[in-house]
């Protein structure tokens, strides 16, 4: 007996033909059906933020969404960030500031930060802290992640001329 539902899933502008059970989460399908294992699964109840991805421009928890709910939506994961060998500026800022240790939470942070800064390109320090409080990191103590965001915000506001407001 097959309760599988076939549909097209758009991840990083590529179409994946998948056939999955209704109760498979988007996180599991991205990892297992699309083979994109950069999205990490931690708590499976929306608390840790490791599975954060971007769906239709907004950061969401991939563990709290069934894959079938993502039909017709644009999904972005960590694999869609770098351009070939060239890191995305958020990734480079993490590297420059040592914003990671074990790296498990990093893809979730990168996707959270990328989506948040697309919506608000010049956050205050307070807004950055509030945003980062959504995800858990048990290694860094967050300060280097904060520094990475500051560097990225500084670079992008220089190039766009947006006002830095802190």
């Amino acid at each position, binding site marked *: 007996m097959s309760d599988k539902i076939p549909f097209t899933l758009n991840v990083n502008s590529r179409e994946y033909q998948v056939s999955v059970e209704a109760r498979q989460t988007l996180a599991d399908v991205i990892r297992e059906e699309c083979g994109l294992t950069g999205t990490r699964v931690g708590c499976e109840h929306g608390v840790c*933020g490791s599975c954060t991805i971007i769906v239709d421009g907004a950061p969401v928890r991939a563990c*709290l969404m069934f894959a079938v709910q993502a039909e017709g939506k644009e999904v972005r994961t960590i694999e869609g960030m770098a351009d070939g060998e060239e890191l995305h500026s958020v990734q480079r800022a993490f590297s420059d500031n040592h914003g990671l240790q074990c790296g498990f939470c990093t893809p979730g942070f990168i996707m959270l930060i990328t989506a948040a800064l697309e919506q608000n390109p010049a956050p205050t320090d307070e807004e950055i802290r509030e945003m980062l409080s959504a995800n858990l990191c048990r290694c860094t103590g967050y300060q280097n992640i904060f520094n990475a965001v500051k560097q990225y915000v500084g670079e992008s506001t220089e190039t766009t001329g947006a006002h830095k407001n802190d």
Partner: protein
Amino acid sequence: MKYIEPASLPEALEILSADDEARCLAGGATLVAMLNADLVEPSTLIGLRRIDELAGISVSGDHIRIGATTTHAQIAGDDRLTGNAAVVRDAARQIAHSAIRNMGTIGGAVCHADPNADFPGALVAANAVLEAAGQSGRRQIPADEFFLDYLETSLEEDEILSAVMVPVEPVGARGRHLKFSRTHGDYATISISLVLAINSGACSHARVAVGSAGPAPVHLAEVDALLTGSDLSGETIKQAGQKLMEAADPVDDVRGSAEYRRMIIPGLLQRAVDELR
């Protein structure tokens, strides 16, 4: 488990009434987590995302209609929610974190009826009315009568919450949802939802509800009456806080003992009043 995405509310209601074990899925912020933990086992999930009439916010006459599948982020970002409705917006703004607010919906949160959540108290304070759709039509349930117990509402099994209606009146009112929690983004240890209108120093309207203080929001008509018409002096607020504290019936859990939760109430009420004055 089957998954169906009906295109209309009547279609969804038909599926729901034909199957006792079917559950509606809106944003998934809670239901998917419960499924991941094997706490629920629905036979069918009815995805509501294609039903246009359940989505979005509209202002019509004497109330603001918030469709059941409107996300917390949409509510937090809507500047039409002012006056009496500001308390609902303020609550939405403080639910969990951005990634959750982009997924969770007011209908899902309200129907889950977790007394530690932010919307129940805010909707009682705003005197909101919940619209339930059934196969035989729609009925309106005041927020005060909707939240019955832990995870239990007055919605019938074959009904779907279609909208939350927040009265525009009193227009000059201001609202605040004040949350006392262990850490940013956590559920409240205690929350106070307060709507106040003040005319030349005297309070002309007051409605206060306390969240995380028992199986349903704690709301006492005598406390609203005590505040209304008063000058909101420290002594009056203290009396009001005392009454709410006595009516509260919180649980002991990881977010605080029942006694601790009760003791927070008067001070938090005073703080909410100070912020709105």
